[in-house]
């Protein structure tokens, strides 16, 4: 039995439903992360994520045209192109990757893309700081 890697715990940022069913996450910094990351930084990350999700679900002219076009072509058009939502999800994935590389990894944290948790939570994995335990 090998001793495990350095995962100490996980924190879950829950959804914020105050603006309805739109996908938004709570921006409050959980207490477990207070020691690890700056409050402003974290809120900035979550706010950007929220904006991206809002963009994905926006009822704009673009989504309207896309919807009509899809209906007329019996949704076969999506065999060739991605939906607007999927495009934004890719943007979000890239954003999270950047954030992890630049900000969270050096602090021993890891953000999981919410889409992998069914857009329920942002899972933040806290890695043990072995420099302290040794």
């Amino acid at each position, binding site marked *: 039995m090998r001793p495990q890697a350095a995962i100490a715990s996980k924190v879950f940022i829950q959804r914020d439903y105050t603006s309805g069913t739109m996908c938004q996450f709570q921006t409050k910094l959980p207490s477990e992360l207070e020691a690890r990351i700056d409050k402003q930084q974290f809120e900035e990350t979550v706010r950007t994520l929220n904006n991206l999700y809002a963009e994905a679900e926006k009822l704009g002219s673009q989504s309207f045209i896309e919807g009509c076009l899809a*209906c007329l072509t019996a949704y076969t058009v999506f065999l060739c192109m991605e939906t607007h939502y999927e495009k934004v999800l890719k943007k979000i994935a890239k954003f999270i990757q950047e954030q992890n590389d630049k900000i969270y990894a050096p602090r021993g944290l890891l953000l999981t893309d919410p889409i992998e948790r069914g857009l329920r939570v942002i899972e933040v994995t806290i890695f043990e700081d072995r420099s302290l335990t040794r």
Partner: protein
Amino acid sequence: MHLGVSESMRECEYSQISTRSSTPMETPYKKKTPKRRKWESFPGRNKFYCDGRIMMAKQTGVFYLTLVLILATCGLFFTFDCPFLALQLTPIIPVIGGVLFLFVLGSLLRTSFSDPGVLPRATPDEAADLERQIDVANGSTGYRPPPRTKEVVINGQTVKLKYCFTCKIFRPPRASHCSLCDNCVERFDHHCPWVGNCVGRRNYRFFYMFILSLSFLTIFIFAFVITHIILRSHHSGFLNALKDSPASVLEVVVCFFSVWSIVGLSGFHTYLISSNQTTNEDIKGSWSSKRGKDNYNPYSYGNIFTNCCAALCGPLPPSLIDRRGFIQSDAPQMAPPTNGITMYGATQSQQSHMAATTPLLQQQTSEPVILTASPENGILSGRTALSLGGPCTSLPLGQPTPPTSTPSLSCHEVVDMLPIHTHTHSHAHTHPHPHNHTHPLQDPMAHHHFLTPEEVPSPPGMLPCGSPMGHSPTVQAGFYNPASQDSLHEDSVRGLVKLSSV
């Protein structure tokens, strides 16, 4: 001895973990097992076809009846009535009929086969975290956990979010748990047996298109079959006309009965769309003014046009359950690659979303939880189960940090009930109401506000990465071996026994 760990632990902990270590400890035979797709271990009661591309409810008998009725009636129409009508009136009639028929069929299949907006169940980590927060909110007052609800104010209306015991999540607003499919569905409208699927956020527009076009088709066929009979009876008398085309009689009967129901249903759903309500909400009268003077629908955009646009032409969210992705059951050493996100674009699934291997872990955790009868392991079982339920049985039974005893002990009385809850729910699968989980142990309503994270006791250091996050492309080797499930459970039991002695 640590795998792939170097001396410089102070910085870049994270990149240490991302090293992809080959794990010789995994039994060799596991790598040869065929990869299973996630739909094969989906926890809901759905049926999948075409290797996960098609998703339907369990009972599909009525759907086939719908198909047969539509196909038979249209078939009879095109065979017996259209030749006469095309000659006597205009050939455009069969063309329009054909277009309508194709549209009806297309929207029916699209409604029936697509994911209505199923919410994937919580990973064991999430469930444990929520349970912990709820237990702390309850405190140790009493041993019967009150019903779990959370209140939120949306657009000035107070909406209660209910906790789903099966899926272990707080349901988003407008979501509901379908008892027939055993899934929580976003913006749940209703479960339609005619369509053989739930109608929810992702397929409501197809459903509406289906009933609308079916109304037109039914009226169309009805009208033209009557026209056909009338025209024939000009030539040869009424009874002879009926004798000459007996199929028309059948069509008239089918259409006559369908028209009332289908057109009525279309009208009803048009009303729902224009007021941005779901069938569920309308039936329960959630936003009716009869409930109170200030009761209004917080989701409505205010005007009919916007509501219609939102329901029918809004962006189509992707499926949250990754049906065709492969089950990644990697060890914690297989920690995520540098981006920390599973390969969004790199999976082989069409949807390209790697929902966590929730189905896998959910299956496995349900049993270990039941096995623990002792209250001490109430909380721990939820977490250790995830670690042991993972295929890597080498998981940390010897975690350096023992669980902090105090918080766990204080939650005994409440936690005591938890395994029983899950037991009842995983095995009973009986939901008296589609929308409520009447739980035998529920107390009368108590409102809980969530404690801020500061008040929650620090979690014991027992959350290894059992829920696989990392899905580096090279780690596609199937570590998940269905054949070794039993041995995994045995390990789980042994592990739990070990823990209880900690």
